[in-house]
């Protein structure tokens, strides 16, 4: 009997612990200084870390961001433990339907995936779509393959085995890369497809952008894909990729930004890979912040909701976007920023729009 009482007590204590952690968000909302919590994609993290900090020092709202991956960001929003989540891949219609309430997407910044390689003395490697398909499907296995040579006259390509390095962890970077591959190659689309992690035909995995970049820089003859913000900051050798207009484009802030110049749907859910713009770098994409359209849930205070949308409105403003280049991201083109602002104005509290 005594043992049973003890067990009940233990359960009660454990239960109380988990309850209090759930309510944390609600309690914080009542205090005068609002704290916003967010979690999700690691790809925009350097940018978020910088602008979140600047926002706090300028406006006083405390912000915390946990880089736990896009999947984690979506889960956290589903569990309602964050004020907003962040993801590199937009939620599909199916996923949107699974969420407990209507969710809106706010594009925050543009990034790209670059093809990095390690061939000492070989700069400005040009890779056509056909070459990308053959290298990443494992059909071309040596750097001196005639097909690569024909595309790169004047480059001294060595007799060296090609080592493909991909991500071993699930990643939005992989998603953008594979989305592009799916668009340019039917063979890839049939055999591999699009996803945050894949069944790779060849190659080896390394963890995170630093892992892939480290393995490539340590391994002569290696090729792989890396998030542009990381590659630009580290000055890694990158290949020129052919866009849909047939031009070979070097990844840069300008060419990445150009990818978003085309028509963007009202809900901004679009993959920008293989953009029509002749100046655009073809493996580019948005990263999004996701939040509930109706902000009055789980007993959230109106202050909390207002702070959330006010901050996001600032995040897509010229003020914040102007800082993107400092950490090697491409700012949103004006048209995309306008769309984001319009979406934020549709976010409500008790049915009333929070922003005017």
């Amino acid at each position, binding site marked *: 009997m005594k043992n049973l009482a003890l067990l009940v007590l233990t359960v009660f204590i454990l239960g109380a612990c988990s309850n209090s952690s759930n309510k944390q968000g609600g309690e914080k909302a009542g205090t005068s200084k609002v704290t916003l919590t967010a979690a999700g994609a690691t790809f925009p993290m350097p940018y978020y870390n910088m602008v979140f900090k600047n926002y706090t020092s300028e406006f006083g709202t405390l912000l915390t961001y946990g880089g736990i991956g896009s999947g984690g960001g979506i889960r956290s929003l589903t569990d309602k433990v964050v004020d907003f989540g962040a993801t590199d891949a937009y939620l599909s219609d199916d996923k949107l339907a699974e969420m407990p309430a209507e969710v809106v997407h706010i594009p925050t910044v543009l990034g790209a995936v670059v093809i990095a390689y390690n061939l000492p003395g070989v700069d400005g490697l040009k890779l056509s779509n056909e070459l990308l398909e053959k290298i990443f499907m494992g059909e071309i296995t040596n750097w001196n393959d005639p097909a690569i040579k024909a595309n790169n006259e004047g480059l001294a390509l060595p007799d060296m085995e090609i080592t493909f390095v991909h991500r071993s962890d699930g990643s939005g970077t992989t998603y953008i890369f594979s989305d592009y591959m799916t668009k340019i190659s039917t063979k890839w689309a049939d055999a591999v497809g699009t*996803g945050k992690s894949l069944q790779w035909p060849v190659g080896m995995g390394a963890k995170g952008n630093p892992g892939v970049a480290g393995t490539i820089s340590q391994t002569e003859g290696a090729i792989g894909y890396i998030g542009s913000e990381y590659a630009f900051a580290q000055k890694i050798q990158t290949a020129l990729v052919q866009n849909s207009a047939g031009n070979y484009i070097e990844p840069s802030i300008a060419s990445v930004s150009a990818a978003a110049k085309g028509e963007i749907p009202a809900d901004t859910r679009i993959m920008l890979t293989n953009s029509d713009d002749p100046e655009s770098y073809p493996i580019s994409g948005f990263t999004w912040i996701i939040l509930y359209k109706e902000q009055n849930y789980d007993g959230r205070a109106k202050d909390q909701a207002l702070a959330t949308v006010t901050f996001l409105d600032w995040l897509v403003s010229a003020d914040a976007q102007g800082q993107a280049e400092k950490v090697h991201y491409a700012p949103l083109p004006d048209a995309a920023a306008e769309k984001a602002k319009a979406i934020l104005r549709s976010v409500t509290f008790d049915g009333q729009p929070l922003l005017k």
Partner: protein
Amino acid sequence: MKLGKLPAKQFSQLLKVHQMNSDKITKGVLLLSSFVILFVAGGMIFSLVEGAIPALKSFGLSFIWSNNWNPTEGKENYGALPFIAGTIITSVAALLISLPLSFSVSLFLGEYYRGTRIAKILGPMVDLLAGIPSIVYGLWGFYVLRPLLIDLGLPNQGFGIFTASIILAIMIIPYATSLSNEIITMVPNELKEAAYSLGATRSEVIFNVVVPSARSGIIAGYILSFGRALGETMAVTMLIGNANIVPDGFFSTGNTMASVIANQFGEADGLKLSSLIAIGLLLFLMTGIINAIGKFIIKRMG
């Protein structure tokens, strides 16, 4: 009030009450903490099983021997064989590589050079190996061992099962060594002296007296280190190549159970998350079975 001035009867009563209280408190605390452990362990098993159910429902038991790992939406199909194979191959190989090394070191420390200055330096050094964080082993493997193996002509740029096994072997040496060393030192001198007095040589004494009487402890040490190799994550992830395939050779790339979970759970959801949890459950069962086998062997030999 001084205790010495109390009547003897009262004093003993006070003592009794006091003793009873502290006894009760100790008992309560012990009971509570054991219950907490039990509760946590039970909760872990429960959540593992609960999380693994969707995957096991979709794929059935063939999850264990299917070698398909396709996370692409629409074609999702998961099987644990590549990771089970990778885990067992690397751990067994690590055990085999470490066996001669740790056995000689423990004989060196516990018998041949017992109590000498060199043993006093070497012993703590071996223990120190156990304290090195696994990420440091991984870094060393990545930047030192791997280039060495590339120079020796290893395929896959030095990544793979073989490289991972070598690192694992180095990591588990201190576990096997320390325990065997302790046990070898504990073999009674009378036994050894009796053998010597019968005219046995030193190696005869070691292999006919010391090793047999220390055998259950030595085996326990190896089982402990095998368990450690099974669950090692970070260093393996950095060196095994993380290719989700059943390795087709000792130099092939591969992946292990712990490594795939660490790599992929961050972005996983739905069926994939459930499959990763199922792999965690299998790893848990595997370690449990190996521990049980170890206990059984020790019991039979002891």
